[in-house]
């Protein structure tokens, strides 16, 4: 679905990503784990075409997208749910969702939009009940659902999410992760960037650990959860991990 080879990227003189090589297979949930400033957001923005890679190759669904414009990447079926939701506060929920459908209009699939909206409402019943409410009045969790719903309106093959759990209450985080699982079950591949490594690794099939722009570990979610460096750096208490991990 997605393949990166030796991608270098940064901003101005600042180099953020160093030869990042990774892949996401169709139907997988893959997570990128890393500390603040490790380059996780830059990685997603580079795939989305918002940051130009300086070197390397990005292939999405068989098409090279290394220097392709963002709109084109979205049209190909790769959507990004940005950090901090970024919903349009003064607009009602329904209109926020319809904004996500512009790709479907461009594809000439205007007639499917109503059906897509219905699917999003089925996935997030709370959004249906807030249908006409201004997005700015929603709670943090509802805004996150709206951002995810808006991305789904573009019918992505791959959905990339940047820190969807950030700033949310633990119970809401649980809901969001459960929804990501359902989205995958419905056929959308998921690439998830998270500081909440434990939660992300629990729903992911595989993961990569990014440190100062370089991938230092990769493996199945199970392997990463059992890795002591990951436990120390990203999963909090070592003792807790020691008691939990069984052979």
């Amino acid at each position, binding site marked *: 679905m997605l393949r990166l080879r*030796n991608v270098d990227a940064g901003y101005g003189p600042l180099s953020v990503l160093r*030869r990042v090589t990774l892949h996401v297979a169709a139907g997988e949930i893959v997570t990128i784990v890393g500390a603040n400033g490790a380059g996780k957001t830059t990685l997603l923005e580079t795939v989305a075409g918002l940051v130009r890679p300086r070197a390397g190759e990005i292939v999405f669904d068989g098409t090279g997208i290394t220097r392709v414009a963002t709109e084109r990447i979205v049209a190909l079926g790769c959507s990004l749910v940005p950090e901090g939701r970024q919903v349009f506060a003064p607009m009602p929920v329904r209109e926020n969702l319809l904004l996500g459908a512009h790709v479907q209009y461009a594809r000439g699939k205007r007639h499917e939009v109503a059906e897509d909206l219905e699917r999003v409402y089925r996935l997030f019943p709370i959004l249906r009940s807030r249908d006409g409410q201004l997005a700015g009045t929603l709670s943090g969790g509802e805004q996150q659902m709206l951002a995810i719903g808006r991305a789904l309106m573009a019918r992505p093959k791959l959905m990339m999410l940047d820190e969807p759990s950030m700033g949310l209450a633990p119970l809401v985080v649980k809901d969001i992760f459960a929804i990501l699982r359902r989205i995958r079950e419905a056929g959308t591949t998921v690439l998830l960037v998270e500081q909440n490594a434990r939660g992300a690794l629990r729903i992911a099939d595989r993961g990569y650990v990014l440190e100062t722009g370089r991938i230092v570990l990769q*493996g199945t979610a199970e392997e990463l959860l059992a890795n*002591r460096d990951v436990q120390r750096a990203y999963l909090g208490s070592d003792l807790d991990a020691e008691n939990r991990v069984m*052979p």
Partner: protein
Amino acid sequence: MNGTETRIWEPQHECMDRAELEQLQLERLEATLSRVYRHVSFYRKTFDGIGFNPDDFRSLADLARLPFTTKADLRQNHPYGLFAVPLRDIVRVHASSGTTGLSTAVGYTRNDMRTWSNLTARVLVAGGVGKEDVVQIAFDYGLFTGAFGLHQGAERLGASVVPVSSANARRQVGIMRDYRTTALVTTPSHALNIADAMIEMGVNPAALSLKHGLFGAEPWSESMRKEIEEKLEITATDNYGLSEVMGPGVAAECLEKKGLHLAEDHFLFEVIDPDTLAPVPPGTPGELVVTTLTKEGIPVIRYRTRDLTAILDAPCPCGRTLRRMARVKGRTDDMLIVKGAKVFPSEIEAVLLEIEGTEPHYQVQVDREAGTDLVTVLVEVSESLFFDEMKKQSVLRDTIVKRLASELGVTVDVKLVGKKTLERSDGKARRVVDRRKLD
């Protein structure tokens, strides 16, 4: 095909699309390079020493730019200097068998143990073993990786493990009969000891439950395989590994018995010319060089195994896409220079096993005088021949000398000795006694 279903332990990896495998190898190698550069001062120093920045690594072809790691490096950093994790993350320590001098320590994290068990489960399944089998491990349990490595794999597989360890051949036979062992794991030479013990004890192999033999830890030949298969009435497969990179599980034959499938998702394999150190193409023999891709405890970069083999890239009918390596021919340090010709003990063995009247026990003694290796081959012959028939003895000796001369291209001295006069071991056979004093 022939009614037997091919079983594969991890088809998602063993039958992987080659392009996907290459992507995985690159991801794993780049992560390994970043890790060793950060956590192992030896690699940081050697990389810096040749001006290699791991950030500049771009493709598997760049591997040839990296320095080799040798046994000497392991010794100099013994015991824990090359570990990439703190000792408290290590759950097991083993050591190399010390075939060539001092043994060196290796450590495994919990993830390494899991990987290793899966790799040896692959070996067992490739050799025909399933969860319904009773697996008798006749390797020495200890620092040596062979016994524990395959033991874990057999458990992982769900087979019934009988950890007999290094008991003598007669005891192995007794347990094999009483416990109805179906698969035997040991060295090929010990398998022959066991076959001999069966004859002595009057045990008919056809009356046993034994079906499969998985042999490794020393080089052996195709004719030795035939002999083991006939004497024990089993299928015999070869498996390969070395503790410096993991232990058993690095490569293993499937029932096609035409080369050992390499665990290319966990290791990167190269074959180099041992003289020029340049990589050679598939099919060309040379020294095997291994880089670990997933090892956490003690990753190694371009480890020179000293084992001589060739990578075979023809597809295998078993369905595995992992390439194969040829049976290990010997070690670069076993190689003898006899009157200018390169000779391996394994070639001598192959000839001996084809000659009627010899026992499959032999020893090659090497001395050096004035820069030339003097080779004497001691061969055991049956008792009747040894005591009674001087004439037949000299005919046999001449036959061996001639056959060796035509196969090796040089004449070596041959001595016939009585049955069971050569040193036996329950572990690795001592095939070569090297008395050369090299500088």
